[in-house]
């Protein structure tokens, strides 16, 4: 018979298995590693469960353990971000590119987004430097607030915002290049 504490942990964590796995998969790029990462996270979370304060944000707490576990396991593999200047990345990049290349109707611009393959979106995300990828996933896919993300990745709010904004701008560039490769946009003017 499981104890009450075991049952409590299981009922708290079970609803988040798929989002933990989803994030792990985007971070590790493959299913086996993602499964290992989530498994380690579950193990650590259960061992640390005494430190979890009742009625606080359990989901953010679990993600914080996932992120720490990821960083510990991949410390060596995670390189410093490339010395690329991100300052010239402009806002509304994809929209502007679409506007420049073909005179699409507004509805067609939204169709353009709908038409991306899931794999293109996943690839674009997985190509982001990991710090950017992590905040974009936590915000856009998992729906965490800026403050929750700051807490999960243990980083000041301003850093969260700058990584998120740069990450998204970079993501738009990748999506644009996929769109061209796939032939979604045929006649780009120069």
């Amino acid at each position, binding site marked *: 018979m499981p104890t009450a504490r075991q049952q409590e942990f*299981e009922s708290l964590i079970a609803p988040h298995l798929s989002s933990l796995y989803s994030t792990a*998969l985007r971070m590790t790029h493959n299913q086996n590693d993602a499964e290992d990462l989530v498994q380690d996270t579950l193990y650590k979370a*259960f061992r640390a469960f005494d430190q979890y304060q009742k009625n606080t944000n359990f989901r953010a707490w679990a993600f914080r353990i996932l992120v720490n576990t990821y960083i510990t396991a991949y410390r060596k593999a995670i390189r410093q971000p490339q010395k690329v200047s991100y300052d010239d990345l402009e806002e509304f990049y994809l929209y502007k590119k679409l506007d420049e290349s073909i005179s699409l109707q507004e509805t067609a611009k939204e169709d353009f987004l709908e038409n991306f393959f899931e794999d293109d979106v996943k690839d674009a*995300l997985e190509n982001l430097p990991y710090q950017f990828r992590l905040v974009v*996933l936590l915000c856009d*896919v998992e729906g965490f607030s800026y403050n929750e993300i700051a807490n999960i990745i243990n980083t000041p709010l301003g850093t969260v*915002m700058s990584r*998120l904004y740069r990450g998204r701008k970079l993501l738009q560039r990748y999506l644009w290049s996929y769109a061209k490769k796939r032939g979604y946009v045929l006649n780009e003017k120069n």
Partner: protein
Amino acid sequence: MKKTNQKKYDCAEIEKRVQAYLDNHLSDEEILMIEDHLSYCLPCDKKVEFEQKLKEIIKLKAAEKEYPKALEDELKKIIRNR
């Protein structure tokens, strides 16, 4: 000319705040200022709408809907063996 104290956002200020706006990280006052601008500036309104749509598409297409069932077994093992 009548002078009003109410400053209005220009397009550059919308561009600067669009992401925080879509992430619901602005004050009520800032939200009103943005929505005021969007109510008469069609180009910004279109762009903001497009960004909103992109955010939705990312969530829709990048979230895994399934996870390995083995994880559930692992979870049971972890909580029972310790």
